[in-house]
C-alpha cells in the first residue's frame, strides 16, 4: 500500500469572451477496492455551482454551467489517496469485450494480430504480457506524431505514439484476442502530466498493465477515470459560445 499526494490542474484560456459554457469534468478519482481517498478537493475558477454524478463507467462527473462572459476556466484538484494493488477491482462491463470508436482495428492491425496470435498462449495475464511485449517492439514512443483524436489504427500505421496510443492499440489487440480490456486515464510516477494505461479482465478481476512502459501496474498509479477508450475518459469536455477562435490549455500535475 502506498499513500499518494496528488495535484492536478488545468488552465483553459480563450482569446475572447465566452458565455453559456457547459462543462463536464472527470477529475475526481473514483473510489474502489484498490484506491481510497483520504481527502480530495476540487476548486473551479470562476466560481460556479456544480453537481456531482457518476457515469456508466463508474467515473465521477462534475457538471457545471457558466452563463455570463468569462475568458478562462481553471480547475485544480488535490488530495491524498491510499493505493493498494493487493486488492481487486471487479466492476466488469461486457462492453469492454467489444471494439470501440478508438480501438476498432483496420485491416493492417487485424493482419498484425493474425501474424502474432500464434505466440499468444497461456493464461490471460501471460497473453496480455505477450501482446504488450510485441507492441513495445513494434511501436516507438514519440511525441508530436499523434493527438487526442488519433485512433489505434492510425497510430499503428505511424508505428509511433504516446501513452494514449499504446493503450488504444493494446486494447484493440486484447479485444481481438477475446480479452475484455479498458482504458485508464490517471496519474503515475513517470514523465508526462497525465498518463494512460490499460486494464484487462482476467476472468474474475481487473489487472493493470502499462503498455507505454511495458510493465505491470503497481501502487505508483492513481486512476482518475476509466472507460472503453479515451472518449469515455476525457478530463474535461465543454461546449461554449462566443467569438473566440482559439483556446489554450495548460496542464500541470504533481505526485508525491
Amino acid at each position, binding site marked *: 500500500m502506498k499513500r499518494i499526494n496528488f495535484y492536478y490542474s488545468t488552465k483553459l484560456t480563450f482569446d475572447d469572451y465566452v458565455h*453559456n459554457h*457547459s*462543462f*463536464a469534468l472527470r477529475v475526481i478519482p473514483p473510489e474502489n477496492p484498490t484506491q481510497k481517498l483520504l481527502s480530495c478537493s476540487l476548486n473551479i475558477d470562476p466560481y460556479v*455551482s456544480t*453537481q456531482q*454524478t457518476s*457515469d*456508466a*463507467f463508474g467515473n465521477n*462527473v462534475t*457538471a457545471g*454551467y457558466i*452563463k455570463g462572459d468569462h475568458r478562462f476556466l481553471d480547475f485544480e484538484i488535490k488530495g491524498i489517496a491510499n493505493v493498494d494493488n493487493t486488492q481487486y477491482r471487479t466492476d466488469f*462491463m*461486457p*462492453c469492454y*469485450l*467489444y471494439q470501440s470508436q478508438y480501438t476498432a482495428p483496420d485491416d493492417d492491425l487485424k493482419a498484425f494480430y493474425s501474424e502474432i496470435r500464434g505466440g499468444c498462449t497461456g493464461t490471460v495475464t501471460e497473453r496480455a504480457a505477450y501482446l504488450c511485449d510485441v507492441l513495445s517492439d513494434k511501436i516507438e514512443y514519440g511525441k508530436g506524431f499523434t493527438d487526442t483524436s488519433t485512433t489505434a489504427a492510425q497510430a499503428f500505421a505511424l508505428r509511433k505514439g504516446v501513452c494514449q496510443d499504446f493503450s488504444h492499440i493494446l486494447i484493440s489487440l486484447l479485444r481481438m484476442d477475446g480479452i475484455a480490456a479498458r482504458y485508464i486515464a490517471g496519474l503515475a510516477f513517470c514523465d508526462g502530466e497525465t498518463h494512460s494505461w490499460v486494464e484487462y479482465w482476467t476472468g474474475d478481476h481487473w489487472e493493470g498493465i502499462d503498455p507505454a512502459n511495458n510493465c505491470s501496474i503497481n501502487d505508483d498509479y492513481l486512476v482518475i477515470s476509466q472507460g*472503453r477508450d479515451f472518449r*469515455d475518459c476525457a478530463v474535461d*469536455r*465543454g*461546449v461554449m459560445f462566443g467569438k473566440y477562435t482559439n483556446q489554450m490549455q495548460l496542464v500541470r500535475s504533481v505526485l508525491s
Partner: protein
Amino acid sequence: MVQLKQGQFMQAVGNANEINELLRRYGVKFGIYKNGVFNEQFFPFDPIPRVISAEDFASIEKGLVQRVNALNEFLFDIYHEKNIVRDNIVPEDFIYISKGYLAECEGITPKNKIYSHISGIDLVQAKDGEWYILEDNLRIPSGASYPLIARELTRIAAPQAFEENNVVDNRGYAELLKETMENANCGGVRAILTPGRYNAAYFEHSYLAELTGSVLVQNDELFVEDNVLYHRTYSGGKTRIGVLYRRIADEYLDPLTFLPGSLIGIPNLMEAYRSGNVGIINAPGNGVADDKGIYYFVPKMIKYYLGEEPILKNAPTYLPFYDEDMKYVMDNLESLVIKDVAEAGGYGVVFGSDLTKEKLEEFRKTIIAEPRRFIAQEVIDFLDLPILDNGEKVMRKADLRAFVLSGEQTKVWASGLTRFSRNPDSFVVNSSQGGGFKDTWVLSR
C-alpha cells in the same frame, strides 16, 4: 376484407379533392431535400381508408401491448442485470455489436422504468389475413399526426362516411400523448424538442406541441444548470422542463456524452436525466431493442419476461449465426430476403430472387464469412390495398404503423398510419420516396 356501407364509403372517396384541399389549408406537409434544396411538399393522402375490424383490432391490440411490455422489460434488463444474456436467450454479441446499444446509458433507470413511451410498430397483413410484425421502432417513430389531422378533416368533408360505419374516434391521441408525457414528467413543463423547421417531420413536431399544450423548443433555447433542464425565456428568465419529448437522435442529444460535435444537442442533458431531474421520451439507448438482429429474439423475450406465448407473429426469420438456420438460408437463399443488421431505412435489403447465379454464390460467401451481420426472412405475400390513382382504383403495397403508448398503462392507439407505395412494383412506402398515406379506421363493432 371488411365490408363498409358502400354509399357512405363512396362519399369519402368522392370528396378526395376536398379533403386534400383541407389538408393543404392546414399545412399538412413534410420537408424533403432534393439536390441540396429544401422543399416542402404536401403529403399525398388517399381517401380510401384501411379498415380493421373490431375483432382483428382486439387481437392486434393485445399482441402489441404484450410486445411493447416485453420490449420495455428487455431494455431495463439490458441496461441493468442482463439476465436474458446470462440465461442464454439472446447471445451477448447481438447486444454489444448493435449500434443502438449505448454503454453510456448503463445503470440509468428512467421514471417508472419506461424506456419506450411511444412505440411505432410496423405490421403487414398477409393475403391469408394473418398480421405479421415487420419491425419495431422504439427511438423516435413518427407519423401519428397525419392520420390524426386527416380524420379531423375527413369528418368535415365526408360526415356520412362515419355516421353508419362505427369508426372508433382516433382524435384522443393528443390526450393519450399528454398523459404519457405527464407520466414521465419529473417536475416541470412539457416540451417537444425539434431540430427545426427544416426537419422532414416539422409539421408533426409543431402540431403535436399545439395539441398537447407543450412548448416547442430547439436546443439553443435550453440549458442544464445544477443538473436541471431549463428553457431560457425571452425576458432572461428560466422555466424548468420536466419532460422532454425529443425528436432528435440519441447520438446528437448531448455533446458532452455522445457526439462531441453535435450542434443540435443540449450539453449535460444526460447528467440531468441520470439524476432523475428530467424525463426523456423515448429513453436514449432504445436502439438496442429495435435492431434488426434483436427483432428475431422478441418472441423469445415475450416468453422469457412475461411467461406468455406471443400473440403476434414475426415474419419468419433466420439467423445464420445459428448452424441450423445457416443451413436453411444456404438451401433457400433464392427465395429469401436478406437484411444487413447494421443498415436502416430500406438500405442493405436484398431479395434472393433478384440475384444472378454468380451474385448468389458471392453472397453465400459473404454470409458465411460474417454470419452475425445478416438476418434472412421469408418473403411475405402482402395483402394489397386499393388506392385511387387519377380516379381509378388500383391495388398497391401498404404497411401499417401502429402506435403504442406506455404511460401508467400500455395503450394502443385505435388508428395508425397506413403508408402505401404509389409505384405498382415497389415495396417502398416511405414518404420521401413519393409514397402517400391513408387513415386507418378501427371499427367499434
